[in-house]
């Protein structure tokens, strides 16, 4: 037998035997998996980049199906992959509305000031541990950027002393909210018109006034203006129930301190 024929026969033979063994193994050791997992894995880009927080595309697909992970976490796949995954998950997953992070504080540098000068480790976690933070308002965004460092998408930055979400880049993964020691960041369903009260100061109106000119004083004007009774004032701070809100934005015009904003327009 000529060497080239022998070589071809040898490699083909080993390959075939291997194939037979693998096919037999995959039948013999078949593990029933939810077919949606396979479909989702196929719909994902397969880069195994880990930006979703899982150990690869297959792992993410599994967590979507089994643990109800969000369908829009794939960064390389973007909106296309999210749509494909949402379609596979179908009706039972509901029409998954993308979530967005919102910073619930309007106290920029010109609106409020510091109680003391902090020179320790430059992180919110550290400054929060020292008398509850260096801001005059103890509910405010501390502005040391723990959220910026937690964000994998470069979507949140400290602008003018407080965190600001880049609405287009935000995927609503919640990493910033988890990193924030003051719970200043909320994760709410994305909406083009529904506003949010960007303050959570629970002090009485007069005290709030002294701390920050952009603080909710609990005047109830927004609650009275709201035609759908979506706004409640509790602990001297207004809150908009996003499920009741219809996005008429009457409260935005009514607010005397101008802290009710539509996050999508910022």
């Amino acid at each position: 037998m000529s060497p080239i024929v022998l070589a071809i026969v040898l490699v083909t033979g080993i390959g075939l035997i291997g194939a037979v063994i693998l096919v037999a193994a995959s039948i013999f050791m078949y593990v029933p998996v939810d077919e949606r997992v396979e479909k989702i894995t196929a719909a994902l880009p397969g880069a195994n980049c880990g930006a979703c927080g899982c150990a690869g595309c297959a792992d993410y697909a599994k967590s979507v199906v089994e643990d109800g992970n969000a369908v829009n976490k794939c960064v390389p796949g973007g909106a296309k992959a999210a749509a494909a995954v949402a379609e596979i998950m179908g009706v039972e997953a509901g029409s998954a509305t993308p979530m967005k992070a919102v910073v619930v504080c309007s106290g920029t540098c010109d609106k409020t000031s510091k109680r003391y000068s902090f020179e320790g480790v430059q992180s919110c976690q550290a400054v929060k541990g020292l008398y509850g933070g260096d801001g005059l308002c103890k509910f405010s965004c501390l502005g040391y950027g723990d959220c910026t460092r937690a964000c994998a998408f470069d979507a949140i930055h400290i602008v003018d002393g407080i965190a600001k979400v880049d609405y287009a880049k935000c995927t609503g993964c919640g990493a910033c909210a988890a990193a924030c020691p003051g719970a200043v960041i909320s994760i709410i369903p994305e909406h083009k018109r529904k506003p949010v009260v960007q303050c959570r100061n629970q002090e009485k109106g007069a005290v709030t006034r002294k701390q920050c000119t952009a603080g909710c004083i609990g005047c109830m004007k927004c609650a009275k203006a709201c035609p759908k009774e979506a706004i409640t004032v509790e602990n001297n701070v207004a809150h908009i129930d996003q499920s009741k809100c219809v996005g008429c934005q009457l409260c935005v015009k009514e607010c005397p301190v101008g802290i009710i904003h539509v996050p999508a327009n910022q």
Partner: protein
Amino acid sequence: MMAVKLASIFFTMILVDNYVLVKFLGICPFLGVSKKLDSAVGMSLAVTFVMVLATAATWPIQMFLLTPEGSEGTSRDMGYLQTIVFILIIAILVQLLENFLKKFIPALYKSLGVYLPLITTNCTILGVTILNIDNGYDFIESVVCAAGAGLGFLLAMVLFSGVRRRVEEAVTPKCFEGLPITLVSAAITSLSFMGFGGIVESIFHV
């Protein structure tokens, strides 16, 4: 005498001829998976396992199929097919192992995650199998050598994950942040292994 020779091969592979730190094979997982200790250990154990298995499978194929006795110099000598055939065998083995773990040890399968398929293209595995043949080891020596190489990989990964944790906590100059300082510390870790040169020969008098 046999035991001494095997022990000498084993410890040589771990300390003197460490695949990562001395032979510079398998640098990709060495840098990629050494961030956390637990994933470093998991990856190393998977590599060790596949290494031993791959050696046990490729040695007979080399000796009985590719270059059977007396074939040297004749047209029957298929030694030039070594690389392609070995890669094929390793790929099959890893896939088989993945199926096996998925079915019988799902916990391990889950903890290894994406590392398992990555082993397919890990050059230390191919390096160990080929160098075993080149060194003229018999079957048992080859398997012991592969086990030693795997544990050497584990040692390097564990050591370096410790080094990396210290480096990450340290304040590095801006131009060295991230990968550069990691590569520099890898180089120094590798240098420290040069100190083992000759130690095994002196202990076992081979």
